[in-house]
């Protein structure tokens, strides 16, 4: 059930989205700053809403799919805001904030709560889940950056004026910037995923005294690490750098969706140790 912070957060995210869209159309720096400020406040509200939810259900925010979605949205927004401040590129907010908003609404408004199943898992488990969700959020961001790269690359290669009619096209980050941001995001994701998986395996060993590599979640995670590691490698190599590497990055995200949605929903029995 949505709490008081949820409505405030929703309004702030909507305001941020409106301001980001206005920013790419008008190019006014002040509008961009307000958009980022609204997003930062939205993330603060979202954080408080997650806390409120935890208090209500006496559990961690990711104890069911809805909470996990909400946490995913929060980490996606926070990672993006960090990248925005580091690279000084605001226009991507137009693509990122709708995703944050959608994840937030999907995680908050259904009004259901699946009963908590594992309350006694301890801080190592909590960190394992949080780092894994952070990794998914960073990969989602890399996907969006790669998609904008491919779109812009497409228009630049077409050579004609089509596409440049839209003022927003002149304001998205340049291809080199998108590539750097995407690599940065994937790096954050990989480090988080490797650390999160390591913690998960350590927790599993502590709990069950064995480590099961036959777990589909672990296998898909390893595949994700290999794919994104490969992306980081080819993105600087001749013949792959540029659009081809961005395509690999975008396609790799399909596996992340598979891991997050399909494995979690349908193969979750293999990933339970209590």
């Amino acid at each position, binding site marked *: 059930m949505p709490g008081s912070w949820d409505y405030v957060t929703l309004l702030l995210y909507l305001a941020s989205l409106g301001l980001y869209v206005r920013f790419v159309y008008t190019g006014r720096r002040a509008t961009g700053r307000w958009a980022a400020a609204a997003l930062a406040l939205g993330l603060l509200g979202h954080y408080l809403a997650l806390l409120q939810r935890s208090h209500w259900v006496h559990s961690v925010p990711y104890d069911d799919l809805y909470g996990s979605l909400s946490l995913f949205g929060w980490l996606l927004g926070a990672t993006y805001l960090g990248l925005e401040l580091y690279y000084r590129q605001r226009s991507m907010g137009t693509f990122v904030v709708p995703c944050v908003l959608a994840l937030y609404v999907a995680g908050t408004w259904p009004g259901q709560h699946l009963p908590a199943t594992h309350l006694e898992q301890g801080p190592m488990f909590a960190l394992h889940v949080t780092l894994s969700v952070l990794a998914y959020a960073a990969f989602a961001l890399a996907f969006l950056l790669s998609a904008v790269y491919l779109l812009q690359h497409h228009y630049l290669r077409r*050579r*004609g004026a089509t596409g440049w009619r839209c003022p927003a096209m*002149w304001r998205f980050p340049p291809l080199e910037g998108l590539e750097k941001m995407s690599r940065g995001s994937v790096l954050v994701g990989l480090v988080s995923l490797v650390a999160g998986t390591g913690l998960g395996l350590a927790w599993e060993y502590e709990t069950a005294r064995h480590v099961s590599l036959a777990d589909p979640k672990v296998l898909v995670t390893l595949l994700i690490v290999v794919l994104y590691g490969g992306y980081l490698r080819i993105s600087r190599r*001749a013949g792959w*750098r540029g*659009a081809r590497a961005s395509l690999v990055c975008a396609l790799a995200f399909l596996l992340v969706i598979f891991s997050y949605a399909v494995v979690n929903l349908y193969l979750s029995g293999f990933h339970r140790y209590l």
Partner: protein
Amino acid sequence: MQIILIGLNHRTAPVALRERTAFSSEDAQRATAELRQAGGLEEAVILSTCNRSELYGVRHDTRGDSANLELFFADFHGLSRPQLDGCLYVHSDREAVDHLFRVAAGLDSQLLGEAEVLGQVREAYRRAADAGSTGPVLNRLFQAAIEAGRRVRAETELGTRPMSAASAGIKLAERVFGDLGGHSALLLGAGEVAEQAAEHLRQRKIKRLWIAARGRDRADALAARYEGASIPWDELPRALLQPDVLVASVSAEQPVVSRAMLAEAMRARNNRSLLLLDLGLPRNIDPAAADLYNLYLYDLDSLTEIVAQNRRAREREIPRAEAVVEGQVSKFEAWRAGRAGRDVLDDLRARLDARRRRLLESQGGALAGLAPEERAEVERLTGRLLDELLEEPADRLRRARTGRERMQLVETLRNLFGLDSEKER
């Protein structure tokens, strides 16, 4: 106090006349000094660009005509007054203010929304201020105009889109590489178009600039002018390995850069992105090269299409830019009306006080029998009567709702009391 503008621009005068009436910075300084010494203007600024020569001034006599200024303008450039017939425009007060703000905003430019004019307005003002030829009115006017120009550029799309093929191409290069500061460019050809491209690249602080032309002397000259390096024409295939941007504008019947050359270069570059701007006609770069990976090729047709589209987009921004200018003009006019209100009250007080003194002096006989204290009392009472008489007009001026209304009241007072015909201070 009247703001007056006299000048000509690309709409009213042919280029030959604009060239003859241009002011160098020394000319501008001399002209403003002469005008102020001759007593015609209290403050003066001259704005001279390739498209306009304009003289902005402030004078106290609001009823004087502009004939003497027009004559000065003609004389200064060794022209007769009739030679300027139909070319000069004269604006005063709000019209002059509006004109300057539109100029600073790029709304009056030949190339709509061009950025250079704002810098030229700023420079003209700085020079005049340094020479001491500005005062409170022109200081305020030019600062407000610069603010209007800055706001139009920040809040509208009027000046953001490139309007020449070369600048559109460089803008596209920024879409690929971002800030060009850390990148390099190669110019093929050393003609006018290459120079234009070099100018745009230098403005963006390109890190390295190479120039290759069939005539090595011209390449050397262009390289020297833009702090680049010239390279021999026959080293072109090797030269393709380095740059991120290549601008070709060579007179040649056949493409001078073939697909094979570019394919080889891209292999050697490890497919590092290369943006090619083919500004030659006939084309200098084999169009078949467009399919090479990580290579972005634009010819004149595609760039011209982008420029035409940008021009239409800029034109759509005119109403928004005009709204910004209108707001800034109104703010300035409110300030000017407040100042004019204070001036007219000062003038009126000075005139009435002079009349009062004359009257007291003319009544010397009748007041001769009064003791000094009684004479002082009469002085005090008549002075107080004057204060009370002026209270109502001062209050009405203060309460005027708009600058325009206040200016009307000021004009009415000046007319009723003949404040411009004879200054009595």
